[in-house]
């Protein structure tokens, strides 16, 4: 689903990402971890066509990232860390607009929005604005926005940052269900290593712009003789996972 070789990104003199090889298979839930400034978000923005890589090659959801970025955009969903809703517009209107940008007719878009919102435990919120919603509801709404066009691959940037443990577990359930029901592939970044442990089939750890460890949570733990992913993280990066993190 994702195949990247030697992806790099430099901003002036700063090498944010220094050559990343990455493979994600269809139906996997992969967690992308790393300390702040390690190159996580830069990598995510490159794979979602928001940032042009300095060098390397990549195929994302079957389309070449360089030759066919529109093809990548058609096939992926992206849920940004800060959400995607202006606080003063009814969410239904924004969702219908977004669906129509992927070529759905107004009627198809309305039906799709109603069905998606129901599936994410948000029935009938179309007329509301995000101001009146809880953090967990907003995150599920962001996910609905990313799924409108039935993407094969969903990118989630810090999906549960700032959520209480209950909302977080609820969101994990939704992500698992999407994979089981629709065969969705999920690539997510997170600061919460227990989230990676509980939700992800496989974990990649990035530090200083390079992938420094990768495998299933259990493989990583036994490889480093660690009890938790936090210990693995500390062993490979020398830092605490939430050091300097915003939330």
């Amino acid at each position, binding site marked *: 689903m994702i195949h990247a070789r030697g992806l790099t990104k430099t901003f002036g003199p700063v090498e944010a990402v220094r050559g990343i090889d990455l493979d994600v298979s269809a139906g996997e839930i992969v967690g992308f971890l790393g300390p702040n400034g390690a190159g996580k978000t830069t990598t995510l923005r490159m794979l979602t066509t928001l940032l042009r890589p300095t060098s390397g090659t990549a195929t994302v959801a079957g389309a070449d990232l360089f030759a066919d970025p529109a093809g990548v955009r058609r096939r992926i969903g992206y849920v940004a860390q800060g*959400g995607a809703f202006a606080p003063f517009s009814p969410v239904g209107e924004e969702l219908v*607009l977004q669906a129509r940008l992927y070529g759905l007719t107004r009627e198809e878009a309305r039906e799709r929005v109603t069905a998606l919102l129901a599936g994410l435990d948000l029935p009938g919120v179309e007329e509301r604005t995000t101001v009146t919603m809880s953090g967990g509801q907003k995150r599920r709404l962001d996910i609905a*926005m990313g799924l409108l066009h039935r993407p094969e691959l969903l990118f989630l940037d810090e999906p549960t940052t700032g959520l209480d443990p209950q909302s977080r577990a609820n969101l994990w359930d939704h992500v698992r269900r999407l994979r089981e029901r629709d065969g969705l592939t999920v690539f997510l970044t997170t600061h919460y290593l227990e989230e990676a442990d509980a939700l992800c089939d496989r974990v990649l750890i990035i530090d200083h712009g390079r992938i420094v460890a990768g495998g299933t949570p259990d493989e990583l733990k036994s490889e480093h003789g660690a009890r938790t992913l936090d210990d693995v993280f500390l062993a490979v990066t020398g830092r605490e996972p939430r050091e300097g993190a915003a939330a």
Partner: protein
Amino acid sequence: MTALAALTGHYLRASFGNRFSLVFGAIQPFLYLVLFGPLFDRSGVGSWAVLVPGLLVQLGLTSAGMAGFTIVFDQRFGVLERLRVTPVSRVTLLLGRVLRDSVVLLIQAVLIVVAAWALGLRAPLAGVLAALLLITVLSVGMASLSYAAALTMRQELFAPVMSTVVIPLMLLSGALLPMSLAPAWLDVVSRLTPFRYAVEGLRALFAGSYASSALLWGVVVSLVFAIVGVALGTSRFQRENA
């Protein structure tokens, strides 16, 4: 095409949902019309048909020129990024907004012309309709450049910078007093701004001089301005994309 219609429709609904924003962009030229127009009309410099074309260009600068302000919020709330991960072409993402701004400007321009008519403006209908078309073309360029500026400069700088920049541009266009009155140096500087040609083209239309070189220059400069504006705006939307 579907995407463009969906975007423009969405933005228009938002604009009409907020009548305040419709009125606000037209307030400056409207004040000039009511509080300065009667003086101008009796000054011996020219009639309403000389002033109103200038006020339409002022409208283009203040209304379409400030259009970029709306994208500042979209950028802050992640709306812009959400649009940029869709397969919609970058020029469509820009034009969806710009067409809304042009429709809004056209409505404001009609209101100003109607109010001016009530105050004493007389001009041939064909000329006025053509002038509305020309100011719409100009507004496409102006709104596009406004978005390009908003996507380029720091968010908090946009409003103060743009509201300052439009003042010399408006004065240099000869919108308030014809540049035929200007000393040579001011006339030269004025000729370096595109709005000078737009104002004179519009005045030619209001005067019914459809075969004048002023009109030809007004049309050519406005078209080039619109094309350059859209190209620059699109390149800012494109920025850093794969």
